[in-house]
């Protein structure tokens, strides 16, 4: 099943998207309680990048023997490599023992820096961006939101996901949203199954793209990244994906300034859309949108094969 949700405040208006997305995802909890993920887009500071990374899986932390020691070592290695590459860490935050949030300044080759950090065994970058903060962990929306202190997060748009694992493991690595490596601020959530995953994955891997998990949804993020790399606009990349990807899917993509949705040609997975002059809300079920708008609203379902993009 899986539940996905997205929201965008038009005209750059800022709101407490942390609380709003938590409510939306909590309303979709019954569609999949395995893990929950948020991609929140804040205002960001000029010249400052936000880095979210993890050094271990939650499961490992519970059952492993020397993982606590390793986690500390891995984090120290990340710090060292950031300094070595000439990045200046301005702020550090640790919500958990295994996931961290850094603010840093850097004006060199970003892809090189990302690759160098991920080269450390066990370290995975969840997101890098000026505005994007990607948080994902096991548990329902309320649990993850509390754990990482997301309530009160001010921003313009967000996407989120509650997962029922069907195609791969229940761990943070296979949880959504996926960050479209190496592009700053691009993230994807997906509801469905892709049937031509391996063909596309091998094709993209040959061209040097990185896959961190065996989750089919990661393909969408990598595919979008590949198209953007080749000069496509977000909307073109998404339109192209409808032919390129086989299977059933409804997915949402967010960039630093945009929010987009795409539906497969069969219209097999649900999506409810609410659009007003100042706000656009999307979710697998209307109850999610109603969790932030209790009043009566007019919603509709986009049709099969439809692609829509909104700007913040």
């Amino acid at each position: 099943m899986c539940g996905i949700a997205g929201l965008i405040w038009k005209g750059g208006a800022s709101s407490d998207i942390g609380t709003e997305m938590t409510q939306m995802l909590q309303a979709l909890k019954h569609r999949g309680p395995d893990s929950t993920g948020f991609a929140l887009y804040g205002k960001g500071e000029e010249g400052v990048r936000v880095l979210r990374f993890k050094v271990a899986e939650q499961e490992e932390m519970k059952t492993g023997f020397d993982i606590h020691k390793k986690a500390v070592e891995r984090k120290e290695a990340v710090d060292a490599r950031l300094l070595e590459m000439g990045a200046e860490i301005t702020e550090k935050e640790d919500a958990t023992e295994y996931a961290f949030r850094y603010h840093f300044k850097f004006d060199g080759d970003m892809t090189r820096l990302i690759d160098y950090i991920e080269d450390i065994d066990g370290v995975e970058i969840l997101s890098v961006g000026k505005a994007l903060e990607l948080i994902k962990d096991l548990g329902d929306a309320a649990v993850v939101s509390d754990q990482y202190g997301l309530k009160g997060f001010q921003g313009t748009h967000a996407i989120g996901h509650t997962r029922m694992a069907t195609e791969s493991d229940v761990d943070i690595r296979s949880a959504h949203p996926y960050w479209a490596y190496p592009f700053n601020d691009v993230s994807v959530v997906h509801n469905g199954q892709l049937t031509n995953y391996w063909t596309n994955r091998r094709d993209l891997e040959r061209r040097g793209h990185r896959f961190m998990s065996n989750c089919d949804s990661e393909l969408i993020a990598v595919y979008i990244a590949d198209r953007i790399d080749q000069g496509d606009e977000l909307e073109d990349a998404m339109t192209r994906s409808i032919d390129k990807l086989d299977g059933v899917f409804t997915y949402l993509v967010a960039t630093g300034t945009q929010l987009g949705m795409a539906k497969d040609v069969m219209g097999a997975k649900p999506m409810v859309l609410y659009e007003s002059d100042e706000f656009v809300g999307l979710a697998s079920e209307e109850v999610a949108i109603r969790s932030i708008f209790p009043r009566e609203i007019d919603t509709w379902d986009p049709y099969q094969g439809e692609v829509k993009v909104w700007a913040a």
Partner: protein
Amino acid sequence: MGSVTTSHEMGLHEEQLAGRTQQMFFSATEEENYTYPWSYEVDIEKSAEFDAAEMEISEINLKIRELMKSGHGTITVNNPRAKHSLGVGILNRLNLNFNGSLGYFGCGLIDGANIRISGRVGWSCAENMMAGTVVIEKNAGSLFGAAIRGGDLVCKGQAGARVGIDQKGGTIIVGGSVGAFTGFMMQRGRMIILGDAGDNLGDSMYDGTIYVAGKIASLGVDCVETEMTDLDRKYLQGKLDLYGMAAPNGIDNMVKLTSGKQLWNYDNLEPTEKKLVL
């Protein structure tokens, strides 16, 4: 008995559908009792109203049941807030009004209730409905009226994909457009679409009739256009008038679609099987 005469006057009982039928007709005057043992005797004049904003799904459905038990025949539910599975399994006459929107699986498995919804409905509304009416003022999700067997299901807005999939009877009316695979494997009954239809309309339909007023993206396998008869026009006029709807370019410009019956191979044996028989 007024309605029975009207339907006879409209010629609904004269039309002979080709092919074998399993549909059984019975007279409403017969002695036999066609109600369910667990249906309620209600008085349509006795009405009740409640607010469902803070109630759980099962609480709302139980409340409706309780009210029916105490003889209420007109029930209004305020603020359903797009919750799933509301108003399901009602097996007796009842005037049920929802002031707001329903989520998925609303009004499923009903037999005889008259339901009005002022908002929209999600996926699989009125699934397997046997009789009665469901009128929705706004949009509907996919799988609208899946496998319905009777009654009138009306959506005044647009509906999603696979409307009336596996329809086995009754009438589905959509005021706006419908998505892909509408009328997929339809077996009986009628569907009236006043907007456009998506790809593969009436794919693999066995029987039944689809009327479309707007553009058709593409027809599915074995769905063919046939000639409209006066009986069709009379029927469409009657049904649309009943719900205060109208074909945008007039009934004369609507298209009638039925099964081409090219896939009707039920009695034909496969070549290998023939050998066995012979």
